[in-house]
């Protein structure tokens, strides 16, 4: 009987839940959604791979790929803090559900690192 007041209140209020796929899920500026890489800034220093607590990141220097296993990643944002070049960042949206074969691992194939050296030469040349 004590509950009746709370229950009756619900008739005059909007539902608390959101209809997710129709309405976007709410998130805040601070939300750690998923990890994204800016391939143009990554220098393949592999610090993110070495210090990832869940071993989700694989950096292959030979083939120049940066792979993240979304199912292993725990979004602790350790890689974001460690990256000296600002290549790794966090997006606020949660990554959508998927099966491992479909979108389990995401590979950022090309890492534009080369332009670093000539730029420096030009500067010293001047």
């Amino acid at each position: 009987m004590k509950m009746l007041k709370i229950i009756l209140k619900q008739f005059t209020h909007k539902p608390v839940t959101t209809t997710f796929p129709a309405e976007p899920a709410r998130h805040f500026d601070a939300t750690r959604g998923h990890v994204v890489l800016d391939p143009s800034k990554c220098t393949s220093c592999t610090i993110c791979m070495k210090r990832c607590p869940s071993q989700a990141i694989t950096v292959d220097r030979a083939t120049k790929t940066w792979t993240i296993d979304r199912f292993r990643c725990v979004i602790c944002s350790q890689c974001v803090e460690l990256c000296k070049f600002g290549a790794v960042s966090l997006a606020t949206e949660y990554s959508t559900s998927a099966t491992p074969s479909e979108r389990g691992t995401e590979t950022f194939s090309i890492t534009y690192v080369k332009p670093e050296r000539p730029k420096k030469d030009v500067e010293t040349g001047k």
Partner: protein
Amino acid sequence: MTMEIIPASPAGIEKIAADMKAEGRRLVVITCTAAAEEYDITYSFDKDNDLVHYRITVPEETVIPSIGASYGGAFVYENEIHDLYGFTFTGMTLDFGGTFIRTSVPYPFKKKETPAPTVTKVSREDAS
């Protein structure tokens, strides 16, 4: 939280527990850790947020008397240490005989004979 650890012997641990109980202390935890050659088993007792630690240093597979007579709640720690490290406790209030924590590797935290499984890495083939 002072960190003074008083050494003790396995034979004397029952008496220490009885003394601690008489003092009105509560058993906080029995921690077993692997030390250099042997194992450290630390008994921590608390009263009004003042921790007292007693430590026995024992080689593998030692038989240790249980402190269950003084602290009825000690059986969870003792069974856990038995299941993870392979020590035998005599006179436990509730003896599970190795079925308290059921692990696929027997005594997973024991050092030499059966090393704990290393980090597993999911291979691509398994994932897809």
